């Protein structure tokens, strides 16, 4: 679904508003008509904008601002101590470390899967194509349960990784699987095969063709998919709850730590770690925007 989002955002940013589109000079009546209807629409715009802002404020802005405010309400020292307490610091390190590993694996495997789905044909390809989105549609707690039943104490394969850091990585890999696949796939589909044929006819081997022709074209998509996967991994809660065992200093990810702080009635400690997560999420949103612009310039 975030692929959709990424695409939609790209679309909205790249396409000029419909009013500005016509290249030919407009005839005077049509221009007058347009400005008349724009004027008529202005009242609606003000009202709609007002209602939307109230709605967003009540649901999103004020609550998120409350988290940031609460984290700093007892001064920067309290904030720093809450974030730097041994267990909070351990959970942040684990979350960021595991998310980096997960993002890198996704960068490679996601591209590879997208490649196989676009360039290869085999029976059942369309089924695999639909199944890729399953981690988005599956409730996260079910995802955790599903992984625990295969890789937990009762594993029929005899592989028991439950309550280990590997389990955290596997759970995050499961929920982030679609991101890179779904951002790279459409770009690969639209890629012009002529360039590759030209490269091949000039004597380039498959590896050279991939590195010099294909990779530069799909790199922006690969990177934005990886950034999305990273931000999802940082924030994940449900999938890791059952399989990680939530052992402090070992397998407890940041979201689970925050949950524990809320349950033990320490909202300030929860807010401090939550603010760090929000800052990372904001950073990723900015990086994504930069990647999309860079991609648009080089596309």
């Amino acid at each position, binding site marked *: 679904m975030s692929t959709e989002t990424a695409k939609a*955002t790209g679309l909205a940013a790249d396409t000029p508003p419909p009013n500005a589109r016509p290249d030919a000079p407009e005839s005077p009546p049509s221009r007058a008509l*347009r400005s008349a209807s724009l004027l008529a629409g202005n009242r609606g715009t003000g009202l*709609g904008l007002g*209602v939307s802002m109230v709605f967003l404020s009540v649901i999103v802005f004020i609550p998120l601002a409350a*988290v940031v405010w609460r984290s700093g309400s007892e001064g920067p020292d309290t904030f720093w101590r809450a974030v730097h307490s041994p267990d909070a610091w351990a959970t942040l390190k684990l979350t960021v470390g595991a998310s980096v590993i997960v993002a890198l694996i996704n960068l490679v495997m996601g591209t590879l899967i997208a490649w196989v789905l676009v360039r290869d044909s085999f029976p059942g390809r369309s089924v695999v194509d639909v199944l890729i989105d399953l981690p988005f549609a599956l409730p996260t707690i079910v995802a955790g349960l599903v992984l625990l039943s295969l890789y937990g104490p009762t594993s029929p394969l005899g592989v028991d990784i439950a309550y280990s850091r590997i389990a955290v990585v596997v759970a995050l890999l499961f929920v982030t699987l679609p991101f890179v696949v779904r951002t790279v796939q459409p770009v690969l589909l639209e890629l012009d095969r002529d360039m590759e044929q030209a490269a091949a006819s000039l004597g380039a081997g498959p590896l050279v063709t991939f590195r010099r022709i294909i990779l530069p074209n799909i790199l922006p998509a690969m990177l934005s998919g990886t950034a999305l996967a990273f931000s999802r991994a940082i924030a994940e*809660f*449900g999938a890791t709850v059952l399989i990680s065992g939530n052992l402090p200093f070992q397998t407890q990810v940041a*979201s689970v730590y925050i*949950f524990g702080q809320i349950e033990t009635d320490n909202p300030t400690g929860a807010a401090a770690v939550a603010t760090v997560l929000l800052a990372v999420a904001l950073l990723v949103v900015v990086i994504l925007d930069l990647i999309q612009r860079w991609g648009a310039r080089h596309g």
Partner: protein
Amino acid sequence: MAKYALRLFAGIYLLFLLALPVGLVFWRTFGSGIGPVIGSLSSPEAVHALKVTILVALWAVAINTVFGVGMAILLVRRQFPGKRLLNAVIDLPLAVSPVVVGLALILVYGRYAPVGGWLEGHGIQIIFSMPGMIMATVFVSLPLVVRAVEPVLVEMGDEQEQAAHTLGASGSQTFRRITIPGIRAALAYGVVLCLARALGEYGAIAVVSGRLVGQTQTLTLFVDERFQNFQEQDAFAAATALALIAIITLLLIKLLHPKDRA
């Protein structure tokens, strides 16, 4: 040769990460026949959890549909200062951890927060009851309808709406006769995405609901509670039901959005 190696590698990765785990849960659920599954799902707690889940999801979808369409129209058809900023923050909920969403709502609408305390004084309880759960669900599924409708509105252009306007149609007539039919498919797609997300929400709901069995427990919380209490049959049955909903959603999405796939 390289082709088969790649195919094999991708296949093994997907098999062990996706297909085997999901398949195993289905197999374990139905391992002793369909009888126990029906038994698990028709217990009073499960039925109540299902009702709560559906009620919360329907409210959240209705709210997000109205505001999603409204905001998509604002973003595509209107000009106003701060439009780029609004466009950027709409995606924010996707990047925020569900637990942080729950915490954020508690800090404003909880019993000991100023707003929540005032509302409770007037007999309105938000946290640990339905309104809070609906708000949390609205938060996590906020961008889905907007982002589904937006590109179609851009593609449609506003010529037809302008024409209807010059022919004397009022704003609501234009909206009903021109805009809605134009975005119908995309809207359905967004609603399905939003519904799936709402039915499956766990983290934010876990924080704001208080997880009161038989009161604010949803189906995902039911899965968690039963699993922690070693009633695995119940947990697997509910998880399979949720997984089936997810698979139906995927098929609907595929049906509604064919051009998304090759």
